[in-house]
C-alpha cells in the first residue's frame, strides 16, 4: 500500500462526507413537498406528470395502500420490459441487428432490472440494441431506484409520525424523486463523463484499420446517459460487457472518481435525510458513522490484499512490489489508469452499496481481496446499500440492535421514543434474515445439484466462490459478479444466432432477485405502518440513546454477528481457503 493510494481514498471519503448533509438536506425538502432550487424548472413538469398519470398527489396512503401501489407498478413494468426484450428484433435503434433475447435470459435480466440488481448474464454491446438499452434498461435504472427511495421516504415518515397512520403518496414520492433528484444529477453527471471521453452517440460502430493495418471496430452508443444513472441509482448494469473497466464507459481517473462518488452519494446522503425527517440529525450521523466504519475496514482489507499480489503471480515470479513508475500488486484484470487503490476502493464501494458495477475483474481478485466484496454483500446490503433499500434495511437492523440492547438491560426497547414490541420484532426478523437464508439455500442448490455445474468457470475453491458470489450478489440485489460464472452461452455469430441461456441459473437467479427486493421492502413498510400509530414517549433518564458512539458500536456488532453466524462456514470453503494457501488449482 502506498501513501498516494491512501490519499486517493481519503479524498474520496472526505468529499462523500461533505456532500452527505448537503444532498441529504435537499432530499429532505423534496420529500416534505417543499419548494427547492429546481422547483421553477421542474414544478410545471411535476404538475403535468400528475395530470397525465391521473393521480391526486395529495391523497394520503397507509402502509398497505402504499405497498400495493408500489407492487402493482413494479409487476406491470416487469411485464412491459419482458415484452421489450423479447421483441427487440422489430424495434428501431438496432444498428447491429441483434436478435430478441431468449426467454430464460430475458426472465433473469428483467427481474434483475426491476429489482434494482442489474445482474448481467447478457453481454451489453453484443446482445442489446440501443432501443433496449435506452427505453428498456435505462428507464428501469431510474424507476427501480426511485421506487426504493419512495418506499424509504414512506418508511421514514412512519418512524417520524406522531400518531397518524398515513405514510405519504407513492406517486408523489416517485415523481419528485425522479424529477428533483435522479434526473438532474444524472444529466450533469452524464455531461461530465462525456467531457472525459465516455461515448454518447446514436451512430453505429466504427470499423477501421489500426496503425499496423489490423481490423478494429469501436462499439459506440448512448452510453454516458445510462452510466450516470446506473452509478447513481445503485443499479450497476453496464452499457458494455466489461462495465466500467471499458474506456468508453469510464475513460479517465477523473471519470472514475465521479462514477465512484455516484455509487455512494445517494445512499450516504439519505442518512442525513433520515436525521432531518425524524427531527434529530444526530440519529442520521449515527447511521452514517456505522456504515462508514465498516466501509473503511473493507477498503483496507481489499487494498492490502490486492497490493500484496496473488498466488498465481508469485508462483510465476511476477514482481509485486511498488516502485518508481509502477504500482506493483495484482494488476490481473485491472486497468493501468485506475491502479490498485482506485480498483480496490471501487470493489468495496460497489458491493457496500448494492451497485454492482465494476472497474476491474473481481474474479481475478486475491482470496482476501475477493472476500471483502463478498462479505460486504453478506451484511444484507445495509452498509450504505441500495438507494432507499439500503437505509430501510439498515433501520431493520437498528430495531434488532435496540431489541437486543433492551433484552440486555431488561427494559422495553424504544427507538425514537416509540416502543418496539412483538409485532415489530417479528417483522424485523423476517426482513433481516430472509435474504441471508435465501443466499444459503440457493447456493447450496446450485452447488449440490448437477444443474449448477454448467455455469461454473474456474476449478477448485474458486468454482465454489464463484457460485457463492453469484447467489450472494443476486440474493442481495447487488449485481456485481465473479464474471466467470455464467447463465448465457453466446457463440460468436452475427445477430447472436445460436445463443442460449442456462435455464437453471437464469430462473433461480431471477426468482432470488425478485424476492430479495420485495420481502424486505414489505417488511420495512409493515414495521413503519405499525410504528406510525404509536405514541411517542418523552426522553427520560432511563432512555437508551441511539445517537451515541456506544449505539453505533452495538449496531455494527449486531450486523457483523448476524452475517458471520450465517456465512462463516460458506466463506471457509471458498475465499478463506484461497487466502490461506499459495497452492494453485
Amino acid at each position, binding site marked *: 500500500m502506498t501513501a498516494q493510494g491512501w*490519499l*486517493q481514498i481519503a479524498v474520496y471519503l472526505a468529499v462523500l462526507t461533505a456532500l452527505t448533509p448537503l444532498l441529504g438536506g435537499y432530499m429532505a425538502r423534496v420529500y416534505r413537498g417543499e419548494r427547492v432550487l429546481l422547483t421553477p424548472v421542474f414544478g410545471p413538469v411535476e404538475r403535468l*406528470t400528475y395530470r397525465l*398519470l*391521473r393521480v391526486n398527489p395529495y391523497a394520503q396512503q397507509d402502509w398497505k395502500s402504499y405497498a400495493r*401501489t408500489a407492487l*402493482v*407498478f413494479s409487476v*406491470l413494468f416487469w411485464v412491459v420490459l419482458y415484452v421489450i426484450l423479447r421483441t427487440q428484433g422489430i424495434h428501431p435503434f438496432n444498428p447491429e441487428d441483434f436478435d430478441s433475447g431468449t426467454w430464460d435470459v430475458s426472465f433473469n435480466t428483467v427481474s434483475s432490472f426491476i429489482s434494482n440488481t442489474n445482474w448481467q448474464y447478457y*453481454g451489453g*454491446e*453484443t446482445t442489446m440494441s440501443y432501443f433496449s438499452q435506452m427505453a*428498456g434498461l435505462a*428507464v428501469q435504472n431510474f424507476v427501480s431506484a426511485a421506487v426504493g427511495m419512495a418506499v424509504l421516504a414512506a418508511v421514514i415518515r412512519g418512524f417520524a409520525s406522531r400518531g397518524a397512520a398515513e405514510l405519504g403518496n407513492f406517486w408523489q414520492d416517485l415523481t419528485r424523486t*425522479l424529477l428533483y433528484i435522479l434526473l438532474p444529477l*444524472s*444529466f450533469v453527471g452524464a455531461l461530465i463523463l462525456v*467531457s472525459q471521453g465516455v*461515448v*454518447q452517440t446514436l451512430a453505429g460502430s*466504427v470499423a*477501421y484499420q489500426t*496503425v*499496423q493495418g489490423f481490423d*478494429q471496430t469501436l462499439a*459506440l452508443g*448512448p452510453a*454516458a*446517459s445510462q452510466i450516470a444513472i446506473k452509478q447513481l441509482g445503485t443499479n450497476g448494469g453496464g452499457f458494455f460487457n*466489461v462495465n466500467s*473497466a471499458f474506456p*468508453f464507459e469510464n*475513460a479517465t481517473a477523473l471519470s472514475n*472518481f465521479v462514477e465512484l462518488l455516484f455509487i455512494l452519494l445517494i445512499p450516504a446522503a439519505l442518512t442525513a435525510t433520515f436525521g432531518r425527517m425524524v427531527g434529530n440529525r444526530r440519529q442520521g450521523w449515527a447511521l452514517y458513522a456505522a456504515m462508514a466504519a465498516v466501509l473503511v475496514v473493507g477498503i483496507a482489507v481489499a487494498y492490502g490484499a490486492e497490493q500484496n*499480489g496473488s498466488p*498465481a503471480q508469485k*508462483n510465476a*515470479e*511476477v*514482481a509485486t*512490489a511498488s516502485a518508481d*513508475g*509502477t504500482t*506493483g500488486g495484482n*494488476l*490481473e*484484470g485491472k486497468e*493501468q*489508469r485506475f*491502479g490498485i487503490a482506485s480498483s480496490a476502493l471501487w470493489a468495496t464501494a460497489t458491493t457496500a452499496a448494492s451497485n454492482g458495477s465494476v472497474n476491474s475483474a473481481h*474474479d*481475478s481478485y486475491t482470496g482476501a*481481496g*475477493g472476500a471483502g466484496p463478498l462479505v460486504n454483500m453478506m451484511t444484507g446490503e445495509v452498509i450504505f446499500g441500495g438507494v432507499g433499500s439500503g437505509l430501510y434495511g439498515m433501520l431493520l437492523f437498528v430495531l434488532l440492535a435496540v431489541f437486543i440492547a433492551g433484552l440486555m438491560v431488561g427494559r422495553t426497547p424504544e427507538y425514537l421514543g416509540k416502543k418496539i414490541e412483538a409485532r415489530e420484532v417479528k417483522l424485523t426478523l423476517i426482513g433481516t434474515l430472509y435474504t441471508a437464508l435465501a443466499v444459503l439455500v440457493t447456493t447450496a442448490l446450485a452447488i449440490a445439484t448437477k444443474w449448477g455445474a454448467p455455469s461454473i468457470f*474456474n476449478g477448485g475453491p*474458486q468454482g465454489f466462490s*464463484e457460485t457463492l458470489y453469484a447467489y450472494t450478489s443476486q440474493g442481495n440485489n447487488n449485481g456485481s459478479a465473479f464474471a466467470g460464472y455464467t447463465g448465457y452461452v453466446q457463440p460468436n455469430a452475427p445477430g447472436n444466432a445460436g445463443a442460449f441461456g442456462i435455464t437453471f441459473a437464469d430462473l433461480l437467479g431471477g426468482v432470488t432477485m425478485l424476492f430479495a427486493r420485495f420481502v424486505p421492502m414489505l417488511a420495512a413498510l409493515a414495521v413503519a405502518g405499525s410504528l406510525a400509530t404509536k405514541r411517542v414517549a418523552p426522553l427520560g433518564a432511563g432512555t437508551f440513546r441511539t445517537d451515541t458512539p456506544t449505539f453505533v458500536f452495538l449496531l455494527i456488532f449486531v450486523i457483523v454477528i448476524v452475517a458471520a453466524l450465517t456465512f462463516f462456514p460458506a466463506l471457509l470453503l471458498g475465499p478463506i481457503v*484461497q487466502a490461506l494457501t*499459495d497452492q*494453485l488449482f
Partner: protein
Amino acid sequence: MRRDLLNSILAIVVFTVMLGLAYPLLTTGVAQVLWPNKADGSQVERDGEVVGSRLIGQDFQRPVLDENGRPREDEEGNPVLEADPGYFQSRPSVTGYSANVTFFNNLGPNNRGLSNMFRENLATYLERERRFSPGLQASDVPPDAVQTTASGVDPHISEANARIQARRVADERGIPLERVLELVDDNTDGRALGVLGEPGVNVLELNMAVDRESRRQG
C-alpha cells in the same frame, strides 16, 4: 387496485418517454454540440484516415516471414504474428484488443493456467527486452507488462514498463534514447487533479509520435 393499474400503465408510458427517450436524446444532443469528438469515441486520424481511438489500445504486431520472405501461416491459414520491435507493446489482452466484443479473463487468483500464462508472458518479455537492457531481471518487470487488462483494450502501460521498452525502440529506430524517453514523458497521462488514479503512458499516441520522429530523422 383498478385505480393502481390505470395509474401504473399511464406512468409506464410517461416515464418511458421522459427517461428512456427524452433524457438520452437530450444528453446526446448537448454532448454532440459540446464535445463531438469525445462523444464519438475520441477517434484518432493519420493522414485523414481513422486509425484508432486514444482511449482504446491496439496491438503492434507484424507478420512473421518464412525463409522465402512470405508471411508464415498457421494450420488454419491465419498469418503468424509477433510483436513489432519498432513499437512500444501494449499490455497482454485476452480479447486481442477487441473494442466491440469485450470480456474479462476471469481466471481466479489460485488458477494454475493463469500462473502459467504469467510465466510465459514474463519469459517472452524478458527475451524481447534483454538484448537491449542487459541484466534485466524478472523482478524489474512491472506487473502490467505481464498481467492482462480488465477491458482487454487498456490504452496505457506503466511508466516503468515504457522506460524498459524505450531502449529497444530507440535501438530499432535509430532514435537517441533521450529523445524516446522525452516522447514517453510527452505521452504520459498523469494523475487526474494530481491525486486520482495512476499515471499511464498512452501506447497508441506514443507509437504514432515515434513514427513521426522516425520520419523526421529518416
